């Protein structure tokens, strides 16, 4: 039986939401390609292909209608977020393993769309960085710094044929977050680290513009009401405050907050990853707590952890807390007093 409302529903669907999220990612992707070369097209292409094929196969095996569920677009967003989190120019199987972990393990093992407690792309990333740390720390150096500038064909070649002909050192480098951590631990003064060629005016050379482009895409999502302000603001404030405090306490060891906001996955995480509605908190106050926690943990992991970036682990830990946070941050219902009666 089909009850009211019968009115023509709002023009809104899961697939349109997902497509808009992907559209909002495009400025960041273009910036990435501009500053770091064509590798990003290869990893996006591979992750998308693997993810769509795997999702289709799983839907068939689960005996659910393939077309509506494949066209909801959620797997595309997962694939893109994974591709944007992984180093480009890694061997093809790394992307395949990441997709299996994200789509099969993190999503469908829990029941598919809407049921997963953890952000699938971040599960894929976290499992890969634990399992294959070497591949995961080789990021393409910004164009102009690499000894070798790559064409799209070179990139395909590298990803599929392996890294025989060209040494990885010719086109990759550690990330700035990584470099900062290692050099600061070795006792190099902050000014000297900042003077290294890989650093730009605020963050990593090139990366700071990519971050700005992701933030721009995020603002587009805000304008289109795909997300609310709570999660990005709380995430960035949590990250900046924690990083700022550490920087004040020990400026030689810890970079300034602006550097943290414009490096690594901070902007991508704040606007696109922490905001995944399925795994994020859903009450206004809960969103602030959840994302503030994720930002805080990101700064801590970056400062004291052993991995190049902290966004993925921070978001996953915050995901764990969501049911608890939601249960205790229910908004007051109309006609109830403050005690909820």
């Amino acid at each position, binding site marked *: 039986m089909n009850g*009211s409302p019968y009115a023509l529903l709002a023009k809104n669907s899961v697939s349109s939401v997902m497509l808009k999220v992907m559209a909002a990612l495009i400025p960041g992707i273009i910036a990435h390609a501009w500053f770091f070369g064509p590798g990003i097209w290869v990893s996006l292409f591979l992750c998308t292909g693997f993810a769509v094929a795997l999702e289709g196969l799983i839907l068939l095996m689960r005996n659910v209608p393939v077309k509506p569920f494949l066209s909801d677009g959620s797997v595309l967003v997962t694939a893109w977020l994974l591709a944007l989190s992984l180093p480009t120019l890694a061997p093809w199987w790394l992307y395949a393993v990441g997709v299996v972990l994200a789509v099969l393990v993190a999503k469908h093992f829990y029941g598919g769309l809407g049921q997963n407690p953890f952000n699938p792309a971040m599960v894929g990333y976290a499992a890969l960085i634990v399992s294959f740390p070497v591949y995961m720390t080789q990021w393409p150096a910004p164009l102009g710094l690499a000894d070798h500038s790559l064409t799209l064909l070179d990139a395909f070649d590298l990803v599929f044929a392996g890294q025989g002909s060209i040494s990885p050192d010719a086109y990759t480098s550690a990330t700035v977050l990584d470099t900062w951590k290692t050099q600061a631990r070795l006792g190099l003064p902050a000014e000297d680290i900042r003077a290294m060629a890989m650093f730009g005016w605020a963050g990593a050379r090139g990366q700071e513009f990519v971050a700005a482009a992701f933030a721009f895409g995020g603002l587009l999502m805000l304008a289109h009401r795909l997300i609310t302000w709570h999660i990005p603001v709380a995430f960035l404030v949590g990250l900046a405050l924690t990083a700022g405090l550490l920087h004040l306490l020990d400026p030689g060891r810890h970079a300034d907050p602006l550097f943290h906001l414009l490096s690594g996955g901070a902007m991508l995480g704040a606007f696109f990853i922490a905001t995944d509605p399925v795994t994020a908190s*859903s009450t206004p106050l809960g969103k602030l707590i959840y994302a503030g926690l994720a930002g805080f943990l990101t700064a801590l992991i970056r400062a004291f952890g052993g991995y190049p970036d902290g966004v993925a682990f921070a978001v996953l830990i915050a995901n764990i807390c969501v049911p608890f946070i939601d249960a205790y941050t229910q908004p007051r219902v109309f006609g109830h007093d403050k005690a909820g009666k």
Partner: protein
Amino acid sequence: MGDRLHTFNGGIHPEGHKAESSATPIRDMALLPRYVVPLRQHIGTPARPLVQAGDKVLRGQPIGAAEGYVSTAVHAPTSGTVIAVEPRAVPHPSGLFDLAVAIESDGEDRAVDFTPLDWRNLDPSALRNRIRDLGLAGLGGAVFPSYIKLNPGAQSIHTLIVNGAECEPWITCDDRLMRERAAETLQGVAIMAHALGVKTVLVGIEDNKPEALAAMAAAAPAGVEVVAVPTRYPGGGGKQLTYTLTGVETPTGGRSTDVGIQVFNVGTAYSLYRAAMLGEPLLSRVVTVTGHVARPGNFETRIGTPLADLLTAAGGANPGAVGEIIGGPMMGFDLMDLAAPVTKAVNCLIVKDPVHFPPRPAPLPCIRCGACARSCPADLQPFEMYWFSRAKDFGKAQSYNLFDCIECGCCAYVCPSHIPLVDFFRFAKSEIWEREQEKRASDQARQRHEFKEFRLEREKQEKAEKFAKAAEKQKEAAAAGPAAAPADPEAEKKKAILQAALERAAKAKEGVTPKNTDHLPPRVEREIAEIDARREQVVGKEGGEG
């Protein structure tokens, strides 16, 4: 109070489609050969039939009397002969039949004598009883008997809100009524204000009805403030309009009267005018016929008019129609049978076409995007209520304040996964109500059983005492008389066997569980306990708004 408006959270802006039916004046309908007047036309107890097949009736003659407190009378829409008092199709989502009086018109339309009410001098309770017998009920949809709402009772009422918001898309009956009969409607409002003894009267009208606003403002006497409220569905919900105009939230589980505010619909005010000034019972109302029809518009429709005839009056459905809705597209329901008549609750008949009323797309899983929560005028978290209603974890659904849901449909309207959320909430509510009923029944059964056990035990004891007395008497007699004859050994043996059997039976009986609620699965028992605990909080949602 009305000079600063308050904004409730949530709400939506669906396509209005008001112009289709609001352009033309209210039309009268020709006298029909047959009318069907259901006896249940209001919340509460259905009216008790006063006529039987073969009786002659006049227009305005009572054919059903108020039965009990929450009830009101129903009247013959024209003169003629009662041809049946039997279950007929009624406009209800269930499609079930209900007791109705079918009248064959004699074509003369003769009326009983109507005596205007001397409402200024009449004793308040006598006035209310007259209003009850004239069959007045809220015409905004809830059809709560008006005479009850006109009783200020223990709580003193300081503000009367007259609801002319008409926030549902497509419906324009209140709009046309206010445009054409503003003075009469406001006279009805004056009688309401008199009966309630209120100081402040606010008339709330959505600002998408400038003509109605102008007409009402022009006709409003001193002390009645006509306020334009922003057009945002469900701004005409009783709780929402009250909040918009006064900033006061109706407490959960309660009514606006708990905070000194009474709300009536403009249509009810107009019918009160007719009742008081002309002495006329509620015989007709304005009904919008719109959608996929030849000549959409509003009709002064006698209560009991078969919907098929009303549709004919509007020129009939256009080719390609795919069904009808009673009420608005947001909160109305699919009509099962066009033979069902117009009742006091029916404000609109919409004929559906596939363009404006396409089938709902197949639902996808909830992605917890929270669009429903942001659109909810009650500030609920519909996706949480959905999650638990779907899992049939009704206790949990209730703890997310399921019963504060007004079923306005905003959540289902915005949901990107196209989940029929309101269907789930209706389902959960009815399941909870049903379980409470079951619980009451099983409580009763248990009490009966316990009393029976007590009675059996008492009888056993009384028997035992009697036996003991008799045995004593025998003993005394034996002691007094000659020595008793030695017992028959065969009889002694039989007695021992019998005794053993009795003991075994008693033991077996102890093992048997005597309570009929003990066989319920633990889940149900737990739920019964939980429901019991929350029972106090659940108050029937009848009425409250005009």
